[in-house]
């Protein structure tokens, strides 16, 4: 009997049109839990580093997390893993919603897709009955349009659908996979789905998910519900409203966007508008938001309302979440009204709301600088909003200049040349980042930006406040009920952290403290991503209901395996190391681990070197960021070190830093052409 998980994966080979239901090894759950952990294991085992993202041998894995489909509140994430066409490294984007639980109820932990279909198809998973169906009639359709059509066609309104839009079909590097109010957007996984010729996956399940020790488990769930209620009544004082509560930042509920609009950059991550937020704007934006927002909505089994139904007269109703209402608005120096409108089209096309507006703002900067000319932009309207629509339409169709922009700012700049590289200034590992430019280096954030395998800050940060609180009294009040800390020392680190003076950035938190803080935050994200738990109830917000002290009981009572805090942290470390190993084998090295040059105005090269050195050491990696043989052995990842040694990435007897081989380098620089 398998508990919490189903014990079965669905293996689909699109080239051969074959479908298999494969039982999994129960030992894998003990070692990696599930979700991102087992995805990384599959990618390591089955996708050698020679494989290109758009190869039939690349896998596209839709995975549930270990706790998805159990009563654990908020465990509803689908973890999609593949190789990214943009970074050429591993991509693991995730989405909330209803897909993962439905897949569990249908009897599967994962859908693993390999090969390529000659024609556009969609998958229909109805419990034991699985079909590959023709999708030629869905070609060119929007993502949510596709979902609607499939539900009608199947006469199954209770099925859940994940679909790509035009962007995915055209292998746009910023193509997302859309599912209701949720999407797996980052790193171009929608492009891989389109490359495989798969328009959508529909799933319906009506089977049981079993729990090993039900009474204990449900008690823990009830405690979480109680905590959420209490936390809702007691927002954290002193932090901006969108971060005071639980959930992902409450952008649909709250209209106060002073923090984002005055701290984040507008345009191509360029201009800070400190005076933007006025009473007049606040009133106008409140009105706009309330007039288009029909209802606040949730993901499966979660009381938080991080999403919303958006209905604008004359435009199809769509669903939105989090920060995307501002990404287009701010990239275009426009208004919230514009942001809500263009996001509808972008959602149907299925594009990442972070990278896409940046690629468009980048193009307009190049145009203003004369690097792109009227010849490159024939017929482009004269107003910025009109230009954004014009560019969006061309990117998702890969038409004209859109073909280059569709590969993201890094690859587009390489191709455009003429100094365009200078304008692709906000990338890490070739991937667009939050439009944030700050003054003083923050050592904790430096490490997270450099070394995060997700290449996206919001998937690493969380538990430790982003900045020091102004007064000691406020800090003392904060640590009073800070039960989530893995160790009391973190309270002291926070108490002593001052906005100015000796105990402030960049030398405080110290290098050692910074390593420990990052390690804790990262650990929580890796646990969540293996369990399918939403970061919004766990690793992302301050003082969340799930933490290192109650997770062991959750996992033990759900699965029947007995795990304590040390065991849990070991699994998180194993998963984190394995994802890194996949990337190391694909050529990632220390030189790739750097924030955008202009992220902080005040940089400290010596300190930064030391931070990386110590962090690598802390993690058991050598000075190139490669996990050592000894540390891999401790994590029962000897198969990784054997492979590293065979490939010359590690040497057998020592752990001397090894540079990426010239072949790996070539591959890193060479890829990235459109279809």
């Amino acid at each position, binding site marked *: 009997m398998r508990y919490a998980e189903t014990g079965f994966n669905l293996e689909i080979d699109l080239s051969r049109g074959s479908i298999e239901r494969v039982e999994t090894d129960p030992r894998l759950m003990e070692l990696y839990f599930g979700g991102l952990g087992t995805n990384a294991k599959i990618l390591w085992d089955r996708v050698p580093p020679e494989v290109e993202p758009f190869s039939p041998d690349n896998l596209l894995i839709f995975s549930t997390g270990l706790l998805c*489909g*159990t*009563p654990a*509140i908020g465990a509803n994430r689908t973890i999609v893993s593949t190789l990214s066409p943009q970074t050429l490294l591993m991509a693991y984007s995730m989405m909330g919603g*209803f897909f993962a639980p439905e897949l569990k*109820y249908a009897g599967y932990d994962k859908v693993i897709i390999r090969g390529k279909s000659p024609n556009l198809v969609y998958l229909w998973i109805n419990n034991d009955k699985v079909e590959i169906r023709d999708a030629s009639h869905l070609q060119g359709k929007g993502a*949510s349009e596709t979902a*609607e059509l499939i539900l009608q066609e199947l006469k199954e*309104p209770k099925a859940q659908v994940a679909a790509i839009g035009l962007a995915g079909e055209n292998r746009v590097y910023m193509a997302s996979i859309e599912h*209701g*109010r949720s999407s797996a957007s980052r790193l171009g996984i929608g492009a891989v789905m389109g490359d495989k010729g798969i328009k959508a996956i529909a799933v319906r*399940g*009506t*089977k*049981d*998910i*079993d*729990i090993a020790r*039900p*009474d204990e*488990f*449900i008690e823990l769930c*009830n405690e979480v*519900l109680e905590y*959420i*209620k209490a936390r*809702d009544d007691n927002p954290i004082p002193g932090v901006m409203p969108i971060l005071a509560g639980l959930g992902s930042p409450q952008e649909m509920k709250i209209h106060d966007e002073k923090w984002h609009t005055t701290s984040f950059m507008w345009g191509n991550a360029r201009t800070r508008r400190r005076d933007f937020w006025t009473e007049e704007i606040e009133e106008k934006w409140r009105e706009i938001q309330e007039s288009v927002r*029909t*209802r*606040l*909505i*949730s*993901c*499966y*089994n*979660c*009381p938080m*309302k991080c999403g919303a*139904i958006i*209905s604008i007269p004359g435009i*199809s*109703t*769509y*669903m939105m979440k989090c920060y995307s209402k501002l990404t287009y608005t701010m990239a275009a120096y426009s208004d919230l009204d514009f942001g809500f409108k263009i996001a509808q089209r972008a959602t149907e096309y299925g594009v990442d709301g972070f990278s896409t507006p940046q690629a468009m703002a980048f193009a307009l900067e190049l145009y203003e600088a004369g690097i792109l000319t009227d010849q490159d932009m024939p017929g482009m309207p004269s107003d910025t909003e009109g230009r954004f629509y014009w560019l969006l339409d061309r990117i998702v169709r890969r038409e004209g200049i859109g073909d280059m922009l569709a590969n993201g700012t890094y690859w587009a700049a390489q191709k455009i040349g003429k100094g365009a590289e200078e304008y692709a200034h906000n990338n890490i590992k070739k991937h667009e980042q939050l439009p944030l430019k700050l003054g003083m280096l923050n050592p904790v954030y430096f490490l997270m930006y450099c070394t995060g395998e997700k290449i996206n800050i919001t998937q690493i940060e969380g538990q430790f406040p982003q900045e020091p609180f102004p007064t000691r009294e406020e800090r003392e009040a904060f640590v009073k009920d800070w039960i989530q800390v893995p160790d009391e020392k973190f309270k002291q680190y926070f108490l002593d952290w001052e906005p100015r003076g000796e105990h402030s950035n960049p030398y405080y938190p110290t290098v050692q403290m910074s390593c420990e803080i990052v390690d804790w935050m990262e650990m929580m994200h890796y646990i969540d991503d293996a369990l399918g738990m939403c970061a919004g109830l766990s690793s992302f917000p301050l003082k969340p209901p799930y933490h290192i002290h109650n997770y062991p009981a959750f996992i033990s009572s759900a699965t029947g395996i007995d795990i304590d805090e040390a065991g849990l942290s070991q699994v998180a470390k194993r998963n984190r190391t394995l994802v890194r190993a996949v990337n190391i084998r694909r050529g990632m090295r220390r030189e790739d681990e750097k924030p955008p040059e202009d992220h902080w105005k005040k940089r400290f090269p010596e300190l930064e070197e030391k931070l990386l050195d110590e962090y690598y050491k802390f993690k058991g990696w050598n000075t190139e960021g490669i996990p050592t043989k000894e540390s891999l052995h401790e994590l029962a990842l000897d198969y990784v070190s054997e492979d590293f040694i065979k490939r010359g990435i590690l040497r057998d007897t020592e752990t001397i830093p090894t540079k990426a081989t010239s072949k790996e380098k070539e591959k890193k620089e060479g890829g990235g052409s459109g279809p």
Partner: protein
Amino acid sequence: MKGEKVKKIIKTINIDVDKCNGCRACELICSAFHAQPKYSSNNPGRSRIRVIRDPLRDVYVPVYAGEYTPAECTGRDKYTIDGKEYEECAFCRASCPSRDVFKEPDSGLPLKCDMCESDPPLEEPMCVQWCLNDALTYEEREEEVEEEVEQEELEIGLEALADKFGLDKIVDTIVRMSESKKA
């Protein structure tokens, strides 16, 4: 026959569809509560509450399973409220042959909400406890009813059965049922 006044507890779940966030926690916890042993599994397919969801049309309606009926209605109802169209039979609680809701997915046996009857009794049904957005709230009130009314109902019911099966068969069955209860 004059009935006496008796007190009866009326249990009501108030459903505020405007507050529903569509998370379906009610479906999940309902099926977990009714699992054997309790909470040992869950499966919204077995739930006695169902959220009719159509996000793009802003339709969110929690509906509870009511009586089983062996016959289909002759007509189907379709509601339009505030310009929103609801699916056929959307508000009906019956487990009936015309649709697959409120039936065990494997056996097809009908499901019915029992307000989480248990010993000791719960303060509130589990769906209400797990709905933090207060789309579902619970209240009990006492009402005085005349027993006679129930007596009348019983007679109407028995008459219908007698028409169908004959009075003798009904009597035989009642005798057999009461004997097997004693044993």
